[in-house]
């Protein structure tokens, strides 16, 4: 049998995949710190997350450029082409996930140093965050293992995040008439919304896994036509 050819190119593609998916580890770290900052209303830690987002953006730019170079110089086709196409999408998702952590961290100083925090609300947001971290890990594993079923399961996991987000909204309404508390609850709703979007991005990565495996792109859930 002929020997496997293009070893250098294949190694580079594998390295770029690892580097792109490694961006999910950076996001996971950023989200962990973000949740800690929310829990303790830690403004300094929040600022660290904002500053550290440059690393995620840098990863995006670096891997994106290298993938474009591979497209230009190696004429990838078939699975390689689907992989590169999906990695370009996944990189964008990862970059957005990092931005959502930044969005959460930017609202923490608004709530003040000693905010009228509601323990139940903070608990809900932390639960959302933990569940979202599970999604991030599962999205990465599904991609690495080319497991379309595991990718599809992200929808079920994301439903948990969505339900917690709705619970946050209900709780914010029930928090009463205290103006400071209402203001705090509003900022926490922004945080909850940002975390919910991170979950959505994880599902989008799952859709890219299905594309790499099957060659067909379809949205797992159509937000525009939820009944369809």
């Amino acid at each position, binding site marked *: *049998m*002929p*020997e*496997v*050819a*293009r070893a250098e190119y294949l190694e580079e593609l594998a390295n770029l995949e690892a580097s792109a998916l490694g961006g999910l580890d950076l996001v996971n770290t950023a989200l962990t710190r973000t949740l800690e900052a929310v829990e303790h209303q830690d403004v300094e830690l929040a600022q660290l997350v904002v500053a550290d987002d440059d690393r995620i953006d840098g990863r995006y730019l670096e891997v994106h450029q290298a993938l474009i170079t591979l497209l230009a110089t190696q*004429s*990838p*086709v*078939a*699975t*390689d*082409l*689907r992989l590169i196409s999906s990695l370009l999408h996944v990189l964008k998702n990862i970059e957005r996930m990092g931005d959502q952590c930044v969005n959460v961290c930017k609202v923490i100083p608004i709530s003040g140093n000693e905010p009228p925090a509601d323990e139940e609300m903070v608990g809900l947001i932390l639960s959302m965050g933990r569940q979202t971290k599970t999604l991030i890990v599962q999205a990465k594993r599904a991609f690495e293992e080319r497991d379309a079923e595991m990718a599809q399961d992200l929808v079920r996991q994301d439903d948990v995040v969505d339900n917690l987000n709705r619970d946050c909204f209900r709780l914010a309404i029930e928090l009463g008439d205290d103006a400071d508390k209402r203001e705090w609850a509003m900022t926490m709703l922004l945080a909850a919304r940002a975390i919910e979007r991170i979950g959505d991005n994880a599902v989008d990565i799952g859709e890219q896994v299905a594309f790499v495996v*099957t*060659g067909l792109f379809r949205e797992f859930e159509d937000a525009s036509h939820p009944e369809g």
Partner: protein
Amino acid sequence: MLGAATKRSAPEGSKGEMADSRGVTATSTEPVTAVAGQPAKTIEARDVNLFYGDFQAVEGVSMTIEPNKVTALIGSSGCGKTTFLRSLNRMHELTPGARVEGGITLDGEDVYAPGVDPVAVRRLIGMVFQQPNPFPTMSIYDNVAAGLNLNAKKVSKSQKDAAVERSLRGAHLWDEVKDRLEKPGAGLSGGQQQRLCIARAIAVEPEVLLMDEPCSALDPVATLAIEDLIGELKNRYTIVIVTHNMQQAARASDVTAFFNIEGTGKPGHLVEVGPTQEIFTKPGKQETEDYVSGRFG
């Protein structure tokens, strides 16, 4: 019909005529004008086995070559794609000891049926070769008119002039050579020579054009010019192109057929045929994936 088309040696030189779908025989004096947009002809290959003496070069190829589409045959050297191409217009049998088993039909008509004139088949199914091969001593005009002179006995000068101009325009060469039609064809550049050969092939109004690596001797600019031309010619003809350049297959063809061999001395076989877009994005077989991705070399 197909059942009868098995195990036969080539009846080269037989005097039969092959009628085309418009009721004009291949030896008619009037070249038939293929109308742009009009459906060309379909080639059906059924369980085609090709031999050079005792050596089997191609085994069990069955495929439909659709009209008004460019079908690319790809595969590594020795996989039988050129041999298969040459069997479609009965050029394979020109090699001493070569023989064909199986059935090849052009719009349902068996091209290997007893009584069919191979020359008539080759007029309906034209060929363009790897190396541009204009007749070196002939003028550009005579190169294009060569087929008309051979095939049609009573072509007036004005008819011939019109056919030469139409063919050179069809091959995107007219504007470059219209002022020097009497100059030798060998004086043209490689890309121009290949377009001259295409003009010569289409001058006799074939139904099908076979191209055996038509760009492998050309520079990238001439290559892209030929690929553009192929894209236009498919509106009038069925086109089959053998190419080693996978990007060319991806760019220029609608359907791609992948041939492979299991090892040295084994016959080539058709692994997979499908829309080019699918072959290059999600091929059905791992063997095809490995080849188009350059996994084996």
